[in-house]
C-alpha cells in the first residue's frame, strides 16, 4: 500500500511497510477517538449560566472507566505492536536466508567501496574481485549477504527502497542481507553524520536482470591484487568477536583526495 507512494524493491520492504501501517492505524484510530471525546466533552459541558464546576475524584466506576478502559486498551495494543515488531525484526535482522552471493561494503569518509566476488563467486579469493566506488551492482531475485565495515568513523548504510538501514562500525564487521525484487537504479545514502562530507556521501545501487549482470561482470575491471589495498591502503579488520578490540585501519580523511569531492570545491569556506 505504501509502495504506491514510496517505491519499494526488496523482499522484506512490505513487512516493514505493513508494520508501519498497522501502527499508524492503531495510533490514528485512538488519537481521533480521544480527540473526538475530548472536544465532545468540552462542548457538552461548556460554561452555561447556573452550571457549577464539579470536582471529580475519579473513584466511582462510571468515572474511572474513562481512564481504565483506555489504559487496558493501550497495554493490549502495545503487546500486539511489540509482537508484530519482533517478528519483523527477526525476519529482517536475525534470521538470514542462505546467501547466493556476498558483497563487502566498506564505508569511509566520504565514500562507499563495494567489493564483489567476481565470476568465481568467492569473496575471500581476491583474484578476480571487483571493487567499485559508490556503485553497487546486484542481480534481481538473488539473496545477497553483505559484510559491512568502516575505515574511520561510524557511517550508516541506507537503501531507502529496500527499507534497509545498518550502521557501519570501524573495527567490526556487521553482516546483513537483502534480496531485490525489481530492477532499476536506486539511492544509497550515508545516514549517520560522519564529518563534513556526510551530505555528499551518496551512492547508487543498480539492480540488474541476470543477463545485464552477467554482461556487467564481463566488462567490469577486475583486480589481481587485493583491490581495496590498491585503492585505499585498506586492511581488512579481523572480526575476533570482541567489541571495540580492533583499532580502525587506514588513514583518516584519505578520501579527501578523491577528485569528485575536491572538484566540487564546496568543502572549504
Amino acid at each position, binding site marked *: 500500500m505504501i509502495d504506491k507512494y514510496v517505491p519499494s524493491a526488496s523482499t522484506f520492504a512490505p513487512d516493514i511497510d505493513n508494520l508501519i501501517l498497522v501502527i499508524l492505524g492503531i495510533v490514528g484510530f485512538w488519537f481521533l477517538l480521544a480527540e473526538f471525546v475530548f472536544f465532545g466533552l468540552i462542548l457538552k459541558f461548556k460554561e452555561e449560566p447556573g452550571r457549577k464546576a464539579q470536582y471529580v475524584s475519579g473513584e466511582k466506576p462510571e468515572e474511572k472507566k474513562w481512564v481504565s478502559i483506555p489504559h487496558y486498551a493501550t497495554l493490549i495494543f502495545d503487546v500486539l505492536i511489540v509482537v508484530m515488531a519482533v517478528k519483523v525484526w527477526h525476519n529482517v535482522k536475525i534470521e538470514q536466508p542462505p546467501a547466493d552471493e556476498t558483497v563487502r561494503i566498506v564505508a569511509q569518509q566520504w565514500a562507499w567501496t563495494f567489493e564483489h566476488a567476481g565470476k568465481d563467486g568467492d569473496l575471500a579469493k581476491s583474484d578476480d574481485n571487483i571493487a567499485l566506488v559508490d556503485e553497487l551492482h546486484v542481480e534481481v531475485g538473488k539473496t545477497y549477504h553483505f559484510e559491512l565495515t568502516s575505515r574511520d*568513523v561510524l557511517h550508516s548504510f541506507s537503501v531507502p527502497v529496500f527499507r534497509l538501514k545498518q550502521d557501519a562500525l570501524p573495527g567490526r564487521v556487521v553482516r546483513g542481507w537483502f534480496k531485490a525484487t525489481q530492477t532499476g537504479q536506486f539511492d544509497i545514502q550515508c545516514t549517520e*553524520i560522519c*564529518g*563534513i562530507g*556526510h551530505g555528499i556521501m551518496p551512492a547508487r545501487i543498480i539492480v540488474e536482470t541476470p543477463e545485464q549482470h552477467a554482461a556487467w561482470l564481463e566488462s567490469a575491471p577486475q583486480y589481481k591484487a587485493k583491490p581495496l589495498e590498491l585503492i585505499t591502503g585498506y586492511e581488512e579488520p579481523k572480526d575476533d568477536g570482541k567489541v571495540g578490540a580492533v583499532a580502525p585501519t587506514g588513514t*583518516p580523511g584519505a578520501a579527501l583526495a578523491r577528485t569528485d569531492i575536491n572538484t566540487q570545491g564546496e568543502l572549504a*569556506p
Partner: protein
Amino acid sequence: MSAATETHGHSGHDAHAHHDEGFIKKYLWSTDHKIIGFQYLFTGILMAVIGGFTVYAFRMQQAFPGTHIPGFGRVTATDYNALVTTHGSVMVFWVAMPVLIAALGNYLIPLMIGCDDMVFPRLNRLSYQLFLLSSIVLVSSFFVEGGAFGGAWTSYPPLSAKAEYNLTGTGASLWLFAVALEFAAFLLGGINFITTVMNSRAPACGCSTCPWWCG
C-alpha cells in the same frame, strides 16, 4: 536557608517589596527561587532563539542549496554540520532542560510544597551562573578556528573524539566543555530540588499528599 533569610526576611515570596536592592543584586545576582526560575526561563528562551536560527539556516540550505541564506550567508559543509550539531545540543540541553526542569522547578517547587525558598539558595545561584557560562561557551564556539563542533549532538566517537575526523578540534573541545558545565549546573540544581522536596515540605505535605509533580 540562612542565605535566604539573610536577604529575604521572613517570606521569600514578597521579600523584595520590603527593602530596595540594586537591579544587579535583585535580578542578576539573586538567590530568590522565583528570580532564578525566571533567569533560567529567559536564558532558555534566548537559547531557543539561537537554536531556532540555526535550524532556519540549515533548512534554508536544504530548500535552496548553495545560495545566500538571508541573515547567515552561504552555508558550507562545515557550517552545515556545526548548525545541525548546535541545533540539537541547544534544543535539548539549553532549552528543554532549563525551561522544563530548572525554570518550572525553581519557580514552583517551593510554592507547591509550602516553603520559603530552595534549601540551598546560593547553590541555586551558582547553578544558574554555571548554566549561563555554559551557554556563552557554546555560542562562542562558533567563532573559533574551524567553527563550532560538527559531530552531531549525539557526539559518537570516533568522529567526535578525533580532530582529524571531525575537522573541528577546537569546536569539539568547547562543545564538550559547555556540556560538562551545563551538566554540573543541573547536578547542583538537582541536588537542590531533591533536598528541598525531602526536607522542606510543609507538615501536611506527606509522601502521598504532596503534589505529584514534586513527588
